[in-house]
């Protein structure tokens, strides 16, 4: 069979897995909505959650699409499309593809022509990320059991414990923004963007409080992301 990075077959393979992911998402959505209705949750809260989650997703999803485009020059379109629609993220996919490419002696700057090099990369990208897909079915119940017993023993501490885990995560991702500050003023751009995004969020918060703009609660984070990204374009132009 003639190898082609953008063959109909590869699109069919990618499309079928993506459809599966879509079906799983729809299944969980329907199941959660039905349970929420059963326990009498306010339908307006559910509607707001749906709207704000979709709005929140737009900017990060476009950035994921950019990852698909950048990887497609090397791997064709179907594989990056599939890989970035399922478990993984651009940082992982790039590293895995580059690591596999180096072992089969191909460059990540041009389209792959050798089918064996391609399948080697596909295997490495798949196996390098797959443990979570096994760990969750095996251990989620146990982890949940641990949390439930922690909360049973001391509910207040249980809540603080959960908050602390999240604060640990957010502090790591806030701290990493400062990793380039020793590179001069350009290295400060991510910090400026972080601060601008925080300012947008604060202003939204003030508007919500002062003018009782309830709807803004759902869109404050998407606004601060888009505000931060726009500011990144502006500040880069100014500094350059």
């Amino acid at each position, binding site marked *: *069979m003639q190898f082609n990075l953008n063959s109909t077959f590869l699109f069919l393979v990618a499309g079928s897995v993506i459809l*599966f992911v879509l079906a799983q998402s729809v299944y969980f*959505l329907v*199941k*959660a*909505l039905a*349970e929420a209705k059963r326990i009498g949750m306010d339908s307006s809260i559910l509607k*707001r*959650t749906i709207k*704000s*989650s*979709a709005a929140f997703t737009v900017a*990060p999803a476009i950035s*994921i699409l*950019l990852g698909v*485009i950048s990887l497609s020059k090397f791997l064709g379109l179907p594989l990056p499309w599939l890989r970035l*629609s399922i*478990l993984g*993220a651009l*940082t992982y996919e790039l*590293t*895995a593809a580059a690591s*596999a490419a180096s072992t*089969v002696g191909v460059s990540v700057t041009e389209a792959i022509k050798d089918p064996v090099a*391609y*399948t*080697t990369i*596909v295997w490495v990208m*798949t196996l*390098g990320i797959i443990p*979570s897909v096994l760990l*969750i*079915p095996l251990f*989620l119940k146990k*982890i*949940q059991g641990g949390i439930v017993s922690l909360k049973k023993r001391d509910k207040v*501490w249980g809540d*603080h414990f*959960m908050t*602390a*885990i999240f*604060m*640990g*995560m957010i*502090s*790591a*991702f806030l*701290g990493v*923004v400062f990793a380039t500050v020793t590179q001069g003023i350009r290295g400060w751009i*991510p910090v400026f*963007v*972080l601060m601008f995004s*925080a300012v*947008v969020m604060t202003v939204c918060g003030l508007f919500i409080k002062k003018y009782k703009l309830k709807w803004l609660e759902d869109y404050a984070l998407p606004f601060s*992301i888009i*505000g*931060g990204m726009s*500011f*990144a*374009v502006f500040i880069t132009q100014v500094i350059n």
Partner: protein
Amino acid sequence: MRKKPYEEQIHVYGRVWMLTAFFMMLMVPTAICAYYDAWPTLSAVAKGLLGVAPIFWTVAVIEVITFTPMLGLGGAYLAFVTGNLTNLKVPCALYAMENAKVKQGTLEGELISTIAIAVSSIATVLIIALGVLMLAPLTPVLNSEMLKPAFDNILPALFGGLAVVYVSKNWKIALSPLIFMIILFVSVPSLAGSVSVLVPVGALIAIGMARLLYKKGLI
């Protein structure tokens, strides 16, 4: 016959979906190899894996432990198949729970988190599919030099907003891991590539500080 409680059902169906996803993921390279009759050598795959597995398998364990309490059951079963956790699913779920004024670990929190992750997954798949269909006209726009800084800075833009919501509310717990992380990344910038591995370090510092404050009655 009485129906099983929601959480029990989610464990059963979640496992079925996830294990099916596992086999589907493995079927992708198998099918491509069979179709093109291009089977890689075991040593080439092993060498390639050696470059990623030590870090990313560790990250997988860390993410399972740290993210699942935040995501809830349905959210975890779904997010660990649909991916893009730190840059999308986790913040999306947390923000949705915050807005709905429900807590992680309650049934309401569980449902809101699952709904947020499901909607976000569907929206992501649709946006990427649309982007792939419109690739020719979109590529020059998205790849333009002018827009590059916007996409390079998506994480600071996301976490800046989130910080206001969460750090301001829990600043006593957040302060010490935050200072630690800033000093660490300024001193050793090369660690930026391993940020996921440092999440549990931040979490341990935050848990230690929270315990101390709680014992002293300060939170």
